[in-house]
C-alpha cells in the first residue's frame, strides 16, 4: 500500500531513465520416448514453467506459476527400414514476457505531457508538479 507521502509526491523530471529489471525463468520437465515397435515411437512430455519478474527496485511485480505445457508426438516409419517417416506433434508453448516491456512498465517511468503556446520552452524539472 502506498504511503501518504508517496501519493503526495509528484513525479520528478529525468534527463534519462536508467533501470535494471530482472526475470527468473525456471522449468521442470519430464519426457518419455516409448517405442513399442521398431518403427513406431510415441513421445509424451510436459513442462512446468514459472516466471517471476522484479521491478527496478527489486520488488516482485509479477509471478506466474501455472504454465503447464504438454507435448505429444507420434512417429511412424511405413518403410520399417528407417527410410521414411510420418509424424504428428502437439505442444503448448509459453513465451516469456519481453524484458523491454518490463523495463518500460516496471521502471517507474512515465512520459509526461505538458502543453503550451508554441513559444514556451520544453518542460523542466521545476515544472514537474504540472505533470
Amino acid at each position, binding site marked *: 500500500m502506498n504511503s501518504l507521502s508517496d501519493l503526495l509526491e509528484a513525479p520528478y523530471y529525468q534527463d534519462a531513465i536508467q533501470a535494471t529489471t530482472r526475470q527468473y525463468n525456471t522449468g521442470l*520437465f519430464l519426457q518419455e520416448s516409448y517405442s513399442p515397435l521398431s518403427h513406431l515411437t510415441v513421445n509424451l512430455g510436459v513442462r512446468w514453467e514459472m516466471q517471476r519478474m522484479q521491478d527496478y527496485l527489486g520488488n516482485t511485480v509479477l509471478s506466474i506459476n501455472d504454465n503447464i505445457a504438454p507435448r505429444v508426438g507420434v512417429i511412424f516409419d511405413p518403410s520399417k527400414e528407417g527410410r521414411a517417416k510420418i509424424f504428428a506433434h502437439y505442444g503448448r508453448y509459453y513465451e516469456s514476457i519481453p524484458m523491454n516491456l518490463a523495463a518500460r512498465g516496471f521502471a517507474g517511468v512515465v512520459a509526461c505531457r505538458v502543453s503550451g503556446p508554441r513559444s514556451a520552452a520544453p518542460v523542466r524539472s521545476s515544472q514537474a508538479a504540472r505533470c
Partner: protein
Amino acid sequence: MDYVANMSNEKTRTNDITARWTAASSTGVGAWTRLWACTLNNSAIRPVFPAAAQVNYVEWDTTAASLAQFNPSVAGQCAANLATGFNPCAVYGYQSGGYGEMEDINAFPPGGTAQEHQHFSRAGLHELKYGFDGELVQYGDKIWYSGLDGARALVFTTGGDNTYYSLFRLPPGVQARS
C-alpha cells in the same frame, strides 16, 4: 543549426558474446548432463550525427499543409497546378529538429539446464528424460530524448500549441495513471 530528423538516421550497434559449457557427470545409463549457457547482449541506438542528440525532436502534426510552410525556400516550387488541382507540396506531417528517443540496452541472461536420461525395456524401449532449467535475465535499459539537459523532450506542435513529452520517474510505490 536545425537537423532534419530523417537525415539524422538511426544507427544501432548490437554486440553479442555467447558462452556455453556442457558436462556429463558420467557416461551411460543414468548419467546427468548439465548445460550452462550465457549470452551478453548490448545494443545502442544513436543518431548518426552526434549533434542531433542536443536538439529537441519536433513533429509538426497537421492536416494537409504545404511544404512551403515549413521550408520557405521551396515556396517557388509549390504552386498548385491550376489545370489538374495537383498540389506538389502537400504534406500531412513534418519532422524536424534532433534525433528523438535514444536507448542503451544491456542484457545478461545466464542460464542452465540439468537433465538425466534413463533407458529401459518393458513392452518396448523406453527413454525417460527429466530435469530442470533456469534462467536469470537481467535487463538494463536507459532511455533519453534528444535536447539539452533539463529540457529533453519530444515536441509535437499542432496549431498554435506545443506539446512536450518528457521522461519522469514516479516515486517508489506510486502507480502510473493514464
